[in-house]
């Protein structure tokens, strides 16, 4: 774990000063998020996530896991503090700059978020469409990433004809097709049985071995123990435990 420097976050000019001191792709400095006065979804959180590091975020429902992940891809803005993702300060990021940041971040959700009316190929290719990737290149890259998750033969099928595990593999393929530097997964195995859970987690863990910073929100203790990665426990929007990796592999 790379500890952030206390007190420095509040006055950073667009993250440049810290970029020189710390090369971690994701850094949070005294971050708080409040929807109602006096109540906090996140409270004074300072964390750093290194390149190629895989981290589990855990805690009970309402602990702040999803809010933390959302704040990393700018779906939420911090009420206080600074969040630096890939050198961009989320707290000060202009709306027009958010898409450019998101193109470097992959996000996987529990409910897959696939479009039923589109083929698997089109669902994955959407992430390349927004970049204006030419059709031929789009198809090639989509095929490669679907091959990586073992679904190249289903590319012309529609999501509803796939099992839950397969749908989540498609969602992972979509998150990885742009070779993101950060991968965020919010309860990615929440809807899956144990066998499929390991299959999906292996795919996500693979991304970390290729240098992607991976942050997985889960309350599945067995999964956390099995992978032995750094684990951050949240309660009431605060970090109550930050355990380093145990070195145990899956």
């Amino acid at each position: 774990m790379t500890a952030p420097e206390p007190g420095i976050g509040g006055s950073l000019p667009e993250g440049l000063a810290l970029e020189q001191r710390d090369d971690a792709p994701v850094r949070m400095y005294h971050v708080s998020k409040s929807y109602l006065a006096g109540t906090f979804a996140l409270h004074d959180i300072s964390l750093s996530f290194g390149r190629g590091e895989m981290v589990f975020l855990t805690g009970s429902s309402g602990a702040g896991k999803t809010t933390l992940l959302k704040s990393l891809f700018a779906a939420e803005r911090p009420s206080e503090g600074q969040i630096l993702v890939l050198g961009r300060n989320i707290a000060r990021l202009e709306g027009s700059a958010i898409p450019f940041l998101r193109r470097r971040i992959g996000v996987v959700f529990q409910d897959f978020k696939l479009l039923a009316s589109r083929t698997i190929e089109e669902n994955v290719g959407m992430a390349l469409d927004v970049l204006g990737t030419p059709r031929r290149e789009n198809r090639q890259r989509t095929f490669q990433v679907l091959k990586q998750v073992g679904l190249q033969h289903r590319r012309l099928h529609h999501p509803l004809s796939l099992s839950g595990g397969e749908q989540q593999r498609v969602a992972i393929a979509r998150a990885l097709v742009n070779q993101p530097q950060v991968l965020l997964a919010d309860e990615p195995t929440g809807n899956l049985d144990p066998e499929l859970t390991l299959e999906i987690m292996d795919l996500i863990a693979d991304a970390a071995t290729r240098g992607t910073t991976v942050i997985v929100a889960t309350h599945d203790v067995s999964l956390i123990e099995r992978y032995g990665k750094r684990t951050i426990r949240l309660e009431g929007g605060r970090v109550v435990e930050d355990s380093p990796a145990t070195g145990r592999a899956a």
Partner: protein
Amino acid sequence: MNRVATVIYLLFRTAVRGLASSATTSSAAVVTIAITLVLVGAFTILVGNMRGMLDRFGGDLRITAYFEEGLDLAEARRIAGSVATVEGVHQVVMVTPDEALARFRETTGAEALLEGLASNPLPASLEIALLPEHRTERGVGRVEQALEGLPGIDGLAKGQEWIDGYARAANLVRFAALGLGAVLAVSALMIVSNTIRLAIYSREDELDILSLVGASRTFLRVPFLLEGTIQGLTGGLLAILVLWLGFVAFTEPIRVGLSFFLGNAAPRFLLCGEAAWLVLGGAILGMMGSAAALSGWRGTTG
């Protein structure tokens, strides 16, 4: 295909897919725009034909200046020369008493009326044609004022009042068309806007996902603007088709029914420029409707 072409292709593909997925509401918007434009187009045809008639009347418009009795021909010619220099005068033709008599005979055939007269009672006169831009009430008034001050002129005759009345009627029709068109355009705008709003709601999941994978505001919004524009264009083309079919089917009844306004001239359809404006108007209407819907949309995730 380079990136820009790919993006343009994708934006159009998304718009067309969006239209296809909401065919019923989109069709309603197209029909509303078409109805609006059919009415505006019908008035345009009517006003266009009335204006054509006005132009023909205007071309025939003459001010006749009668000379005082006994004025000698040389003096009359001198006055004709002066009249030709008055601002707004296009052409001056002098009609001698003999020529006037010959015309009278030719046009009335009333030889009997003239038999008992010892001499020709008709005065010499000037027929004054005006430049097109002076064929208005004010233009005619200016020329009349200049003529009235000239020595040797006994009186003036003109057919302007009838033409002015007709011009006022044409203007009234034009303003009625504009007023009705504006009211209908607002309703069409609201329907397009609601159609696009429904499309946004029905595609929220898609917009959410696109936003998550980094779609820009332009990428998210342009397909809806295109949808509105395509609806408007389709409505415009449909309106032209309906107007043309109506025109072909009802040309003869129109000609008879409006013979008072049109004279014996054959009614004309919209000019190419007018038709193009109508279709363009539809497209603008559609685009504005979409823009109105999008202005109230705060976007998706984040």
